[in-house]
C-alpha cells in the first residue's frame, strides 16, 4: 500500500515537566482506517494536533506523500490534504451548514450559496451523508453537527481525515451510520484516523490499531489479529508501582450512603443511572471511568449543584449519628444543615476559585457569610490564607495577587488548602492532580492520606489508573453513568478496571451486594 503520512521520531513537550509525545513513529497508508487507542492523557490528541497544524513538534519530522513538510497552521494542513474534526465542534451557531462549510475559504467578494449548496449535496450523496445545507447549526443535533464538520473537511479536498472521539457524543445508531460513511471514504482511497478509547468500535471499524501509552507508541496491531484483551493489556500496560504511602482504612461507619441516585441533564439525557455506593470514614474511595462517564454529575449532585431524579437518596451521617438526606438541597441549605463537606471541583479557576481575587478573597468564598453584621469579615480569611500559604508552601508574591497569575500547582494548592481549612468529614476531589508536576501531585496525595488517617471520608475521582490503584482503598468504576463495578484497590489489576471502564459489567452484582451488606 502507498504511504499517505509518515511521522518520524515525533516529540512534543509542554513546559519542562510534561512530555506529551516522545519519539513516536507512525505511518498512515492510503485507503485505510487507523485507530489511535490510549487512556486519557496518553497523548493521542496531541499527536494528531501536530498533523492538523495546531501544535508544532519539538523534534522529528512529518512526511506527506514521501515529502518532508512543515505544518504551521490548519491552513497548511488543508493544503496538504489533512483535516481534523475536533471533539468540541468549531461551528458558528447562527450560520447554516453551507456557510460553516465555506467559512475561511478563499473566494471572491460574493458568495454563490446555491453553488455551494449543490457541491455540499454532491459530497453528501457520494458518501451517504444526510445533510440539509440550509439548516442552521443551532437547530442541529450533535450528530448533524458532526456531519457538517466532516463535510467541511471533504469540501476542502482532504485526503486524510482525523476524528477525535467521534462516537463519544453519538447514539449507537448514529455510530453505525458514521461507520458506513467512513468505510465509503476508505473505498474512495482516503485515509481515516480515529482517536478513541472504545475497544469494541476499534475492532469494528479499523484496519490497524496504534496504541499510545504515556506519550509513547507501545504497539501497532492489525485489527484482524486483535482481541479486546490484547488491546486492554497494551493500553493500560503492566502495573508500575508508585511509591505512594497507603495505610489501612480505619473501617469506620459510612459517612455518605448514596442510594439509587439518578440524574437527568438539561437536555433530557440521563447522565447517572441508579448509582448506589457508600463512603466510609477513614478511607479513600477512587472513582474511575473514561471522561464524561458521570463523575462530575455524581459529585455535583452530592454537593447540591445538580438536581437528582425522584427516588434518589444521598444520606449523610454526621458525627453524632444523625442522618440527613441531601437530595434536592442547595449548597447553602446543605451548609446550614451542618454537613461538613468539602469539594475540589475539576474546573479550578472557573468553578472553585475566582481568578481575579487574591488568596484572601478566595478563602472568603467559603466563609464570607460568617459574622452577624452586614460587613465582610477579612481577619479570619486573611489568617486562613496565611496558614494555607505556609502549610502548603504556596508560592505567590502576595496574598492579594490574583490567583489566575499563579502557576497551576499553586492554584490547586490554594483550592485544596481552602477546602481542607473547613475541617470536612467528607472530602470530594475531582482530578485533583491533573496537570500538576510530580512534587505537587505527591503533596496532594499526602494531604489526602492525612485526611484519611484522621477519619475523613475521601473521594478521589482520577484518570491515572496507576495512581488510583496505589492511593485508594476501593475503586468505583463508572461507564455511561452506570456503576460497572466496585473493586478492592489492593487486589484489583489495571486490566480488570480497563474492562469495567469499557462497559463490561463483570462483578457488578457481587460488588453491589457486598456494598449493601
Amino acid at each position: 500500500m502507498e504511504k499517505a503520512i509518515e511521522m518520524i521520531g515525533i516529540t512534543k513537550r509542554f513546559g519542562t515537566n510534561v512530555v506529551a509525545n516522545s519519539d513516536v513513529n507512525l505511518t498512515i497508508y492510503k485507503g485505510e482506517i487507523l485507530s489511535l487507542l490510549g487512556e486519557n492523557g496518553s497523548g493521542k490528541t496531541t499527536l494528531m494536533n501536530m498533523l492538523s497544524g495546531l501544535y508544532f513538534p519539538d523534534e522529528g519530522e512529518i512526511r506527506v506523500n514521501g515529502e518532508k513538510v512543515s505544518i504551521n497552521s490548519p491552513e497548511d494542513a488543508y493544503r496538504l490534504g489533512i483535516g481534523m474534526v475536533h471533539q468540541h465542534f468549531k461551528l458558528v451557531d447562527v450560520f447554516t451548514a453551507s456557510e460553516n462549510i465555506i467559512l475561511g475559504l478563499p473566494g471572491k467578494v460574493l458568495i454563490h450559496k446555491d453553488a455551494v449548496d449543490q457541491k455540499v449535496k454532491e459530497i453528501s450523496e457520494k458518501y451517504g451523508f444526510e445533510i440539509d445545507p440550509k439548516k442552521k447549526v443551532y437547530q442541529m443535533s450533535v450528530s448533524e453537527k458532526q456531519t457538517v464538520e466532516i463535510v467541511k473537511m471533504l469540501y476542502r479536498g482532504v485526503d486524510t481525515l482525523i476524528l477525535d472521539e467521534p462516537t463519544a457524543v453519538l447514539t449507537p445508531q448514529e455510530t453505525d451510520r458514521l461507520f458506513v460513511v467512513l468505510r465509503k471514504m476508505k473505498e474512495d482511497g482516503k485515509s481515516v484516523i480515529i482517536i478513541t478509547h472504545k475497544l469494541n468500535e476499534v475492532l469494528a471499524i479499523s484496519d490497524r490499531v496504534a496504541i499510545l501509552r504515556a506519550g509513547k507508541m507501545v504497539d501497532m496491531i492489525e485489527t484482524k489479529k486483535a482481541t479486546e484483551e490484547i488491546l486492554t493489556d497494551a493500553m493500560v500496560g503492566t502495573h508500575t508501582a508508585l511509591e505512594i504511602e497507603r495505610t489501612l482504612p480505619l473501617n469506620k461507619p459510612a459517612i455518605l450512603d448514596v442510594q439509587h441516585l439518578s440524574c437527568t441533564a438539561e437536555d433530557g439525557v440521563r447522565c447517572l443511572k441508579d448509582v448506589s455506593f457508600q463512603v466510609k470514614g477513614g478511607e479513600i474511595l477512587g472513582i474511575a471511568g473514561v471522561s464524561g462517564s458521570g463523575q462530575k454529575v455524581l459529585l455535583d449532585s452530592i454537593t447540591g449543584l445538580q438536581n437528582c431524579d425522584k427516588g434518589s437518596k444521598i444520606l449523610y451521617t454526621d458525627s453524632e449519628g444523625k442522618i440527613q438526606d441531601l437530595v434536592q438541597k442547595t449548597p447553602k441549605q446543605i451548609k446550614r444543615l451542618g454537613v461538613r463537606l468539602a469539594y475540589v471541583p475539576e474546573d479550578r479557576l472557573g468553578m472553585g476559585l475566582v481568578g481575579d481575587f487574591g488568596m484572601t478573597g478566595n478563602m472568603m468564598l467559603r466563609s464570607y457569610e460568617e459574622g452577624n453584621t452586614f460587613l465582610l469579615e477579612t481577619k479570619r480569611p486573611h489568617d486562613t490564607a496565611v496558614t494555607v500559604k505556609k502549610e502548603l508552601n504556596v508560592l505567590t508574591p502576595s496574598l492579594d495577587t490574583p490567583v489566575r497569575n499563579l502557576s497551576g500547582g499553586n492554584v490547586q494548592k490554594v483550592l485544596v488548602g481552602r477546602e481542607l481549612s473547613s475541617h470536612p468529614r467528607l472530602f470530594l476531589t475531582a482530578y485533583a492532580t491533573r496537570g500538576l508536576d510530580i512534587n505537587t501531585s505527591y503533596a496532594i496525595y499526602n494531604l489526602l492520606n492525612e485526611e484519611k488517617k484522621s477519619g475523613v471520608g475521601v473521594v478521589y475521582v482520577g484518570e491515572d489508573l496507576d495512581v488510583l490503584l496505589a492511593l485508594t482503598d476501593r475503586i468505583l468504576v463508572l461507564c455511561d453513568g452506570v456503576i460497572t463495578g466496585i473493586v478492592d484497590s489492593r487486589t484489583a489489576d489495571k486490566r480488570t478496571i480497563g474492562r469495567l471502564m469499557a462497559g463490561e459489567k463483570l462483578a457488578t452484582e457481587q460488588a453491589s451486594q457486598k456494598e449493601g451488606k
Partner: protein
Amino acid sequence: METNAKNIPVTENLAPAAKEQPAKKAPFARIVRRSNLTKGQIFLYKAITILGAVVISLLYLWIVGKKNPFEAVMYIVEGTICFNSNGLVQSKFFSFLKFLTILFAISLALIPAYRMRYWNIGAQGQVLIGGLLTACCMIYMGGKAPSAVIILVSLVAGGLGGAIWAYIPALFKARWNTNETLFTLMMNYIAILLVNLSTNIWRGKASAMTTINMTSEAGWFPKWDLPNVRGEEYVMIPLILVLLLMGFIFFYVKYTKHGYEISVVGSSVATARYTGINVRHVIRRTVALSGLICGIIGFFLVSNFDHTISSSTDQGYGFTAIIVAWLAGLNPFKSLGYSALIIFLDKGARNLADSGFATSLNSYSCEFVVFLLILAILLGHFFSQYGIVFRKNKDRLEKSLTSNLVLSDNKEEK
C-alpha cells in the same frame, strides 16, 4: 454570474490549486495584549493620547474658527469658571455643579450592577419613571396634603418606581437569562412614551408643561439658604447627598457581604453557585438597588431642580453615565473626576458656541471637541492594555511585548 458559479472550487481540484498558492504573509498589523507596563508607563500612554487630542482640538478650533485657538480655550474654561466685576459668576459655576451632581449620581447608581457584569443601559428610563411618579404626587396631592408629606410620598414613590423599572428586566435575566441590554433599552422607550403621554394630558392646551405648583411650591424640595449665594442654593443638598452616596457605593462594593457576592457573580456564575450564592437573588437585589438610586435621582430632578417633567429631564445623562462609569473603571472616586471633566467640557463647548467667538464654531462643532477628548481617553485606556504589532518590525515588538509576559507567569516559581 453563471460563469462565476462554475468557478466555485470543487473537491477534487481545490487541493492542487491551493497547493500552488504562495504562503500568505503575516497580516499588516495585529493587536497584541500587553501586561508588562508599569504604572508610570500607563500614565504616560494616557497622557500622550490626551495631549494628542488636545493638539488636534486646537488645530480644529484654529482651522474651523479661523481665530487664535487659545482664545477659544479661554471661552471653554469660562463655561464653568468665569469672573466678572462682581467676582465669580455664580450661575455658571452652580449650573456646572448641578449637572455634575446628576451625571455623577447616575454613574454611581450603575456601578454595583456593572461590577456584576449586568449591562443595565436603562438608567434613563429608571430616572424618568422616578421623576414621573414624583410629578404625579406633586400634581395630584398638591394642596391636599402638607408639602412635607408630598415630598416624602414622592421620594418613596420615585425610588420604588425606578427600582421596579430596573427589577423587571432583572427578573427575566435571573429566570430565563434574557439579554438585559436589549430589555433595559426597550424599558427606556416605554418610560419616555409614558412621560410624553402624561405630560400631554397634564399640559392640556398649553404648548409645554409649566412649572408644577408654581405658586404654592407644594412638594418642592427645600433649599439650603446660603448667605452669599443667590438663587442657586438648590444644588447644595443633592451635592452633599451624592458625595455621601459615593462613600456608600465605595463601601458597599468593597466592604460588605453583598459587594463580595456581586464580585463573585460578576467573575464566574459557576463559582458563585459552587459557593452557595443564590445567583438569581443577587442579580435581582443588586439591580433593584441600582434602579432605586436612579428613581431617587428622578425624584430630585423633578422635586428639586426642574419642578416639571419632560422626556428630556434626564439630560441624556442616562447614557453619558455609562461612559463615565466605564472610564472610571467602575471606581466611585474616579467617576467623580470623569463626570467633572465631561460636564466641564460640555459647558465649555456650549459657552464657546454661545459667545459668538467665531460664527463657524456653533454648538455642534464645539461638541466635536468634547467627544474627541473622550475618544482620546478611551484610546489611552486601550493602548495601556494592548499594543499594535506591524509586519515589518514584528519580531522586535512581539519580543518586547511578550517577554515580560512570560516572566510574570513564572515569577512565582522562582
